[in-house]
C-alpha cells in the first residue's frame, strides 16, 4: 500500500450543520454568470451583492489584502456556518458554492483568521424555480455518518479478533491455517483502509509492501508474513520462530491501536464519499494490477473488500444523494451492480480464484468496470457537501 492523502483534504463547503438546504444541484439562473464576487482585504470585505435568489450560490473570493483570509456564509444567528472557504493566501482566489434557501444571512471575511470577521448582511430571496424541501437533509447526513461509523467499528472488531486468530496460527507454525485465514481476515482491513490510512502511522506498520520500503526501513505487517507464508522459490530465508512471534505480536498490537482509535470515531459526509473514491483508487492501482498480494495472489479478496467498503459508504449516503442528484444515484447503483456481477464470476467457494488465474481479457473487463464506476463516484463529494 502506498501512502495516501486520505480523507484529510480541507472541506471547502461545510454545509453539514445546515438545516437550510435545498434540493437540486442545478445552478439557479439568477444574476449574470451567477457568481457573487468578494474582495477581502485586511480591513474590508466587499461583497458585490447583498441579496440573491434561493438556490445554489457561488461566491468568488479574492484576497486583496496581505494576511491569509477566510470567507464564511453564516446563518441568521451569526453562528451557524452555512459554508466556508479557508486558507486564501494573499493574491489568491477561491470559490465557495453553497445551497441556501430563502432567509437572512451574514457574509464574513476573516483576514488573519482570527476574531468574528468583517461581517455584512446578506439576504436570500424566494427562488423563482427551485423546489424547496428537505429540511431533513442534515438528518440524512447525520444518519449516513452514524451508520458508517458503526460499520467501521464493526469491521475493526472483526479485524482485531481475526488478526489474533491468524497470528496465533502463524506463531504455532500452523501455516495451512494461517494461509487459510490470511485473505479473509485482511478483508476487514481492506474495507476500511482509508480510515486506517487517515491515521498516518498505522498503515505503513501494517500494510507496507516490500517495494514501498525506504532503504534501511524495517519491514513489518501483513505483507512480511504473506511472503513468509508463500515464500519465493529462490533465495528466501524463512523467518525464525522468534521473528515469527515478534512480527505476529506486532501485527496484533498495531491492529489494537487502530481498534482503540476507532471506538469513538466520527465522520463527515465528504469523508465517506472521498473514502469510497479512494477505495476504488486502491482497486485501480493495486488490486486490478495484482500488485497488492504478490506472494499469495489473493488480490481479488482485497478487491471485493475495497468495493464492499465503497459500496457501504455510497449506500449510507444514498438517501442524501437521492435528494440532490437522482441521475448520479442511479448511475452509481447500476455500476456497483455491474462490477459486483463481474467479481461474482470469479468466486470460488467462500473466496475467489487467484489473481494469477485470471486471463488478460478478464482483467481488462474488471479494469474497465472499475473505471466506469470510479469516474462518476469521484463527483459524489461535491453532491453531498454542496
Amino acid at each position: 500500500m502506498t501512502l495516501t492523502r486520505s480523507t484529510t483534504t480541507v472541506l471547502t463547503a461545510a454545509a453539514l450543520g445546515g438545516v437550510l438546504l435545498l434540493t437540486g444541484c442545478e445552478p439557479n439562473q439568477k444574476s449574470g454568470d451567477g457568481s457573487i464576487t468578494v474582495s477581502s482585504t485586511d480591513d474590508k470585505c466587499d461583497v458585490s451583492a447583498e441579496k440573491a435568489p434561493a438556490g445554489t450560490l457561488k461566491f468568488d473570493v479574492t484576497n486583496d489584502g496581505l494576511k491569509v483570509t477566510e470567507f464564511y456564509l453564516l446563518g441568521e444567528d451569526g453562528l451557524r456556518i452555512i459554508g466556508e472557504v479557508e486558507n486564501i493566501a494573499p493574491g489568491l482566489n477561491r470559490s465557495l458554492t453553497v445551497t441556501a434557501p430563502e432567509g437572512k444571512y451574514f457574509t464574513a471575511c476573516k483576514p488573519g483568521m482570527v476574531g468574528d470577521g468583517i461581517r455584512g448582511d446578506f439576504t436570500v430571496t424566494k427562488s423563482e424555480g427551485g423546489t424547496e424541501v428537505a429540511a431533513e437533509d442534515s438528518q440524512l447526513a447525520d444518519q449516513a455518518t452514524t451508520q458508517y461509523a458503526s460499520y467501521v467499528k464493526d469491521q475493526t472488531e472483526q479485524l482485531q479478533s481475526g488478526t489474533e486468530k491468524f497470528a496465533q496460527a502463524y506463531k504455532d507454525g500452523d501455516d495451512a491455517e494461517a494461509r487459510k485465514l490470511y485473505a479473509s481476515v485482511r478483508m476487514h482491513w481492506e474495507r476500511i483502509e482509508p480510515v486506517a490510512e487517515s491515521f498516518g502511522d498505522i498503515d505503513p506498520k501494517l500494510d507496507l509492501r516490500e517495494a514501498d520500503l525506504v532503504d534501511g526501513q524495517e519491514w513489518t505487517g501483513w505483507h512480511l508474513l504473506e511472503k513468509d507464508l508463500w515464500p519465493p522459490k529462490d533465495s528466501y530465508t524463512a523467518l525464525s520462530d522468534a521473528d515469527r512471534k515478534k512480527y505476529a505480536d506486532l501485527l496484533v498490537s498495531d491492529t489494537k491501536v487502530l481498534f482503540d482509535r476507532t471506538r469513538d470515531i466520527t465522520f463527515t459526509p465528504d469523508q465517506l464519499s472521498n473514502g469510497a473514491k479512494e477505495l476504488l483508487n486502491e482497486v485501480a492501482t493495486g488490486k486490478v494490477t495484482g500488485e497488492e498480494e504478490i506472494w499469495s495472489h489473493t488480490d481479488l479478496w482485497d478487491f471485493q473488500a475495497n468495493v464492499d467498503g465503497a459500496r457501504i459508504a455510497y449506500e449510507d449516503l444514498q438517501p442524501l444523494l437521492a435528494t440532490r442528484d437522482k441521475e448520479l444515484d442511479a448511475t452509481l447503483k447500476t455500476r456497483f451492480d455491474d462490477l459486483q456481477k463481474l467479481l461474482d464470476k470469479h468466486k470460488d467457494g467462500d473466496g475467489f480464484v487467484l489473481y494469477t488465474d485470471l486471463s488478460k481479457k478478464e482483467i481488462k473487463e474488471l479494469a474497465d468496470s472499475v473505471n466506469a464506476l470510479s469516474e462518476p463516484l469521484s463527483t459524489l463529494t461535491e453532491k453531498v457537501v454542496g
Partner: protein
Amino acid sequence: MADRPGVSRRALFGVGAGTLAAGAAAGYFGHDSVAEAVGAESDVVDFYGEHQAGIVTEAQDRMCFAAINVLTSDRNELVDLLQKWTKAAANLSQGLPVVPDGVGGGSRMAPPIDTGEAQGLSAGHLTITIGFGRSLFRDADGMDRFSIADRLPEGLIEFPHFPGDQLEDSRVGGDLCIQACADDPQVAVHAVRNLIRMGFGTVSTRWMQLGFGRTASTSPDQETPRNLFGFKDGTANVRSDESKALDEHIWVRDGSWMEGGSYLVARRIRMHIETWDRESLDGQEQIFGRTKVDGAPLSGGDEFATPDFSMAGSGNQPIIPVDSHVRLAHPSQNNGVRILRRGYNYADGADTRGNLDAGLFFIAFVADPETDYVPMQNRLAAQDALSEYLVHTGSGLFAVPPGVQEGGYIGQSLFT
C-alpha cells in the same frame, strides 16, 4: 562516398519554409548566402563548447533518449565509435546528414549513409548529449573491459532502491546514453537512429524513450510548462543565465576528467492518470501546494513568488501542506540543493488494462547525485502526497563528460 559539398537541411528549410524575404533572397544571393541568412535565424545550437549541448540549452519541445549497451571489449573500437559519433553529432546539429550529402551522394549500389528522414527539415535546435553509465567502467561481471575502472567518477553511484520503485528490467541502466532533443520529433529520432546504426556490432540499444512537451524551463525567457497532471512544476529550476548556481549545482568542478561535465539522472515516472483525474481541484492543489490555473504557491502571490512554508493557515496548520510536492521538492527544504530539470512528458499508448502508460520522463542534471538527488528522491518517495499517483518504472544515471572543441571527441578526457 563522394566528397561533394554538402547540402544543408537548414539551407533547404530556408528556401522552402523561410519567410518570403528569405525566399526572395535565395534568388539574388544564391545558395550559400541563404544558408548563412537562415543560420542567423539560429535554429542551430552549437555542438562544440566547454559543456555538451542539451543541458543549459533552452529546452526544446521533443526528446529521444536511448540507453545503449556496449558489446565490444575493445577499447579502441569504443573510442573509434565515440569519434565517429562526435563528428556525426556535429553535422546533425547543423541540420546536415550524418556525413555531408549522406543521403543521395553515395554509390547507387550501396545503402545511403544517412537514413534520410530528416532531409529537408530544419536543424530544429537539435542537441545530442552523450553520457557514460557505471557499467561502462565495470560491467555486471565485474570486468573492467576498457581499463577505465580506476577512473570511475565518484558521482557515478549505484542508486539505492527508492520507496515505491517498480523498475522494469527493460528500462534500467545502460553503458552509454544518448539524449537527443529538438523542436521536431523526427529530427530527434533521426539523430538517435543514425548514431545507433553507425554503431551496430559495437553497441546495441538497451531501451529507448520518446518525450514530448518539455516539462521544465532552462532559460528565464521560457514559460514554465505543465506536466500531465496539468500543473506547473519545476519553477525553481536552475536557469542558463545563473552561472554561479550552475557552477555550484550543475557542473562538476573537481579538476578530474569530468571537469565541466555533469550527471544525468533519468527516471521514467508513470503517472496514475486515471485516478489523479478523479481528485478534486482542492485536493490536487493541496497535493502540489500550488494553484492549478496560475501555478502560484498556496501561500499567495504569482507563479514566481517564493513559497512561504511557515505561513500558517486555518487550524494553525501550514497553508502549504507538509506533504505537498512544492514543499518537499523545494531547495529550501533540501539543504539548498538545486537541480537542473530537463524532463519531458511521455505517453506510450495504453497498458493491457486500458489505462494510459503516460507520465514524466524525468531528466535532471546535477553535480553530485549522492547529495543532490538521492536524499530528495528518498524524501519525495516516502512523504510526498503526489507519490500516491506515481510509480517509477525506469532509471538510469550517467556521467556526462565535458564538451569538446572541434577536432576532439566526446569522452576524450576519459580515454587519454
